């Protein structure tokens, strides 16, 4: 069942229930009040009838001078009263004591009075009749006619009389039943009207839900860039906004994953190319040495030298690749390392190359201790120095490299500056990509694999540090390695 159907049915049911309950309650209450009024009225009629009769008896006694009226006198008086009273119109036969007789035909005269002696004996104080002084009002139903019947006892001329007055209230009940029927129709009509209005309101209110549903379907189908149109400030608009945030996140993540896959693909393609290039030379020259029967000594040596050189390149590449791969996702064990000494050692290791190239290395080192993996960081610094040496060698003679180590706030900054060939501005952002070479031919000549700087970047990142490269083509390059330094280096 759809949500709008549920809301519709539930609301319709509750509305119908509430409307009918309220109207029934009101109706019942008003009916009860009407009955109460009718009852009071009948009682008033009864009491006034009793009083009137007492009055008439006294009058008759005064007129006739009798001390005590006889029973027949009284009966005569009652008949006269019944005939003359506006409230009661009785048959002239005087049968006032015929209990239950109802000869009223006039619609307006519905009240009926029955006066009945309770006992025939002379009054005696010791023998009070059971009913003396009692009064009661009841509702009786007989053959579809409803009456309110009330009685009381009166003491006239030494006798107890039961005076019973009853009134027809059938009309009241008929009216009640009519009202009830009207009420049912009303409830039905109101419910129908409410239902119609409700149906359209619900459909209108749940329209954004349909839009949301359509949007989720589109997003699920892969249209991650789709955004739900969100209007207003209600819950659905909020939900739409949240969904847009969610699909935005999904889109970002998908893009990241795609970019990662693409960069991995490029990496593998480049790696395969870089592996095949030396392999081609190695296999090729080995093949020639196998199949060529006459070969000059010089030729043989040259080929063997090429094979050795290319195999060396392959070895360097594979060890760098291994380092790069092992760095990814590996948690380094960092220990406090004195960076000045580390840089000094790296420079020392490369000093034979520097001497051969007649290159001087200017050092400006402050003592700074940072948390580092010593072997990896040494390899990083050596890579930077090696790059600086190569860049200088390609420029020409009279070279210098500056190395500085400074503590800036909570960072250690190692700068390696050369005055070599520099890097063209448009290629600067690519140099840390694996296998990217500014000048492939020259890189190869100087033994580069295109992987050094990406390795440096990976090492720096593994130390939660970063690498910043500034360069001007033809004027040199400055590479800054920035490492975090703990405030109080933990002692080992």
């Amino acid at each position, binding site marked *: 069942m759809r949500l709008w159907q549920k809301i519709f049915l539930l609301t319709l049911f509750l509305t119908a229930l509430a409307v009918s309950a309220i109207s029934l309650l009101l109706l019942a209450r008003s009916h009860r009040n009407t009955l109460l009024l009718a009852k009071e009225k009948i009682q008033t009629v009864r009491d006034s009838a009793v009083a009137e009769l007492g009055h008439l008896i006294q009058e008759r006694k005064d007129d006739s001078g009798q001390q005590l009226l006889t029973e027949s006198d009284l009966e005569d008086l009652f008949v006269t009263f019944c005939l003359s009273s506006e409230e009661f119109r009785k048959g002239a036969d005087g049968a006032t004591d015929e209990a239950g007789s109802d000869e009223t035909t006039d619609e307006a005269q519905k009240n009926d009075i029955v006066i009945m002696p309770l006992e025939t004996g002379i009054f005696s104080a010791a023998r009070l009749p059971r009913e003396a002084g009692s009064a009661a009002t009841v509702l009786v139903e007989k053959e579809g006619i409803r009456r309110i019947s009330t009685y009381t006892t009166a003491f006239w001329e030494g006798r107890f009389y039961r005076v019973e007055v009853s009134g027809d209230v059938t009309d009241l009940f008929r009216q009640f039943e009519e009202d009830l029927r009207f009420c049912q129709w009303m409830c039905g009509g109101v419910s129908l009207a409410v239902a119609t209005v409700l149906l359209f309101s619900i459909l209108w209110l749940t329209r954004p839900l349909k839009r949301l549903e359509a949007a989720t379907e589109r997003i699920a189908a892969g249209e991650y860039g789709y955004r739900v149109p969100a209007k207003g400030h209600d819950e659905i608009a909020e939900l739409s906004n949240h969904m847009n945030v969610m699909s935005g996140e999904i889109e970002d993540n998908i893009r990241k994953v795609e970019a990662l896959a693409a960069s991995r693909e490029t990496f593998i393609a480049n790696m395969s190319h870089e592996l095949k*290039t030396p392999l*081609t030379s190695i296999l*090729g020259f080995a093949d020639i040495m196998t*199949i060529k029967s006459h070969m000059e000594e010089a030729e043989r040596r040259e080929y063997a030298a090429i094979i050795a050189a290319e195999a060396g390149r392959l070895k360097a590449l594979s060890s760098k690749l291994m380092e790069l791969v092992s760095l990814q996702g590996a948690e380094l064990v960092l220990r406090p390392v004195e960076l000045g000494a580390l840089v000094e050692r790296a420079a020392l290791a490369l000093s034979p190359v520097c001497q051969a190239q007649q290159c001087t290395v200017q050092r400006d080192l402050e003592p700074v201790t940072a948390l580092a993996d010593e072997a990896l960081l040494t390899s990083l610094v050596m890579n930077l120095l090696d790059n600086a040496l190569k860049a200088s060698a390609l420029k020409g003679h009279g070279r210098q490299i500056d190395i500085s180590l400074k503590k800036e706030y909570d960072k250690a900054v190692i700068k390696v500056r050369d005055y070599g060939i520099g890097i063209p501005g448009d290629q600067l952002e690519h140099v840390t990509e694996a296998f990217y070479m500014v000048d*492939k031919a020259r890189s190869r000549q100087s033994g580069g694999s295109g992987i050094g700087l990406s390795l440096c970047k990976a090492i720096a990142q593994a130390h939660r540090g970063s690498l910043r490269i500034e360069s001007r083509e033809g004027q040199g390059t400055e590479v800054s390695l920035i490492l975090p330094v703990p405030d109080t280096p933990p002692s080992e």
Partner: protein
Amino acid sequence: MSCKILVVEDDVNIAKYIQACLSMGSYESEICGEGGLAVERISGGDYDLVLLDVMLPGLDGFQVMERVKDLGIPVIYLTAVQDVASKVRGLKSGAEDYIVKPFEALELLARIELVMKRHHKAETAFAYGDITVDTEKHMVEKGGAAVALSPKEFDVLVFFIRHQDVVISRERLLAAVWDYAFEGETRTVDTHVQQVRKKLALQGRLVTVPTYGYKLLKI
């Protein structure tokens, strides 16, 4: 008639290797290490064939191809990029062949020869001592007298004459003469070589290289 081949390759050692291969097939060759320069040299020179690397500084191989394809000079790609898409792109751009690195010397020569044949640039007449071969007429003469050879024997002879002083393995000969995919027995090769040797009296010149194959000594 010697063919002139331009090798467009930026890796010095691979270029040197290709040159060594080509000299074994007695081709003349020149090396060029940059895309833009290659276009100039192809347009200006009189090359019979271009061996083109794809990953090049300057213009890449495909761009070079784009600029020189109207010249009608056959081009063979020689590259380490071996995905199918690149291969298809290379061949669609009008190249004759697509050779993936690393490759063997004799394979390179065989495929160059195929391309040359297709362009009618291959030599059709060979001589070895008093033996003359005409590949167009399918005729072999020794000392002026015609020698009857079966088609396969003929191919074996031509292959040896084209690759003098090169040690040729049985597998290589199988691949070159029969088919690259032919999974025949190497004994077939032996029978044919013996027949050629006998019919043309090449004892002492077409020699067996123990455990490897055969070699036709240069005169």
